[in-house]
């Protein structure tokens, strides 16, 4: 589904502020996979996501989505940004926000409205369509952003620290929402986070990035029993072991390994 080959990105090459964000990153994501990417803050996670989404042109390497080389935003790709308050349009009702991208899908007005309502129902906001984003709580606004991405029916959904701006309880609800919707929609999800527990809890696979310039330092399969549960999954010995491994990789230091 997603192939990244030798991706390199340098901001302001040749200037005094030259910054190597990504260096020779290789990654392959299979169709239907839910991949979490973790890494220390400022490691180039967002640069990676923006490159995949075609929002910036990387200085080197290749990205393919569904076999097609990314030059501009692929039309089967949706993004859920961290900052929902800036990525939802405050002058549109919730339903209009969800329905706007569907014009590209060639749906008529009636179909767009139905699809938006359906997507809102799937994130538990069936009644919110006529409201404006500012009338909803932060967690609900992020649900709207997720509904917008779902209604678009992408084959690849990118999520950039999607739960970074909400409280802990809401965060858990939204994590479970992602796990639920991926079961109903056939899509590949790449979720970027700096939260180690979250990456293990949500992901089928966790890829750890190094400090900038970012490259892959760890690639772990998560084989936790489904369905995942906020209490029991987090108590599972494999969860505890994995979060330790990921944590050590993120720190990038030789933290003491558990004595077996």
């Amino acid at each position, binding site marked *: 589904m997603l192939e990244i080959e030798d991706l390199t990105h340098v901001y302001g090459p040749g200037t005094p502020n030259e910054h190597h964000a990504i260096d020779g990153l290789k990654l392959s994501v299979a169709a239907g996979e839910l991949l979490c990417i973790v890494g220390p803050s400022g490691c180039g996670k967002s640069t990676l996501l923006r490159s995949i989404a075609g929002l910036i042109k990387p200085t080197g390497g290749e990205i393919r989505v569904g076999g097609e080389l990314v030059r501009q935003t692929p039309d089967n790709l949706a993004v859920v940004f961290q900052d929902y308050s*800036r990525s939802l349009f405050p002058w549109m009702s919730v339903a209009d926000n969800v329905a706007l991208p569907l014009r590209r899908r060639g749906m008529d007005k009636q179909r767009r409205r139905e699809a938006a309502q359906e997507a809102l129902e799937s994130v538990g906001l069936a009644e919110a369509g006529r409201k404006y984003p500012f009338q909803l709580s932060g967690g609900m606004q992020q649900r709207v952003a997720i509904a917008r991405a779902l209604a678009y029916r992408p084959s690849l959904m990118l999520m950039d620290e999607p739960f970074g701006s909400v409280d802990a309880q809401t965060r858990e609800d939204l994590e479970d929402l992602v796990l639920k919707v991926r079961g109903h929609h056939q899509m590949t999800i790449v979720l970027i986070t700096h939260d180690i527990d979250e990456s293990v809890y949500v992901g089928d696979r966790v890829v750890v990035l190094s400090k900038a310039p970012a490259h892959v330092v760890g690639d772990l399969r998560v084989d936790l029993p489904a369905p995942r549960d906020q209490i029991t999954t987090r108590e599972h010995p494999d969860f505890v072991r994995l979060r330790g491994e990921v944590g050590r990789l993120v720190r990038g230091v030789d933290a003491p390994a558990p004595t077996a």
Partner: protein
Amino acid sequence: MIGTLVRRLWLIPVVLVGWELLARSVANPFLPPPTLIASWMGERWFSGPLLLTDEAVDNFVPSIVRVIGSWAAAVLVGVTLGVAIGRIGRLADYVDPLVEFGRAVPPPAMLPVFLVLFAMGTQVQVATIVFGIIWPILLNSIDGARNVDRMQMETATVFGVPAHLRLFRIILPAASPKIFAGLRLSVSLALILMVISELKGSTDGIGYLLSVASNNADMPGIWAGVVVLGVLGFVLNSLFLMIERRMLGWHRGARRTA
């Protein structure tokens, strides 16, 4: 409802009564009492077959058409140009000094130019008003269009929003709080320029009536013109605020919760 109206408006009759008493006590022809002004207005302007007399229709209508027509033209040109300039790369950086200069010219200063350039008549008023009020509209439209949140534009890109929708559903609404700030200034400025340009370069209009009354030392006539202009300004401004409230409801809501 009635309570708040009373609370907000009680001072007006008090001032009018005070003025009346003062004017009667000093009995100076330069300070006519409100009752005299009102009866003058009633006789000259509001005693026609359908309320308005010919004099009122022949002068009020051209003024109102000029001020609204010129304002609409300036808005159309100013917003279109402003959004275009604001969205085209660094163009705004080059255009900005020019616009700032245009704005710094006191608008009435252009009146003599337009009087020479055009024959006396509506074209002078239109030119003076449009040239005077287009700057704040242009400047705010450039600013608003240039500073659309990058994330909003990226969201539009990611979801493949087509170009015309991007303009009408995203750039214009995002810029609208700024644009409306410019429009608000332009409404009152348009009325000022209408009066000034009619005082000098016109053979009809409310400003023209004022200048005639002034030449004849017709004090009630001058005050009557002032009253009509005040009412016109109040009505135009209220209409504008009503539209603004409708269009920017989301903005006030979003700011309250932010």
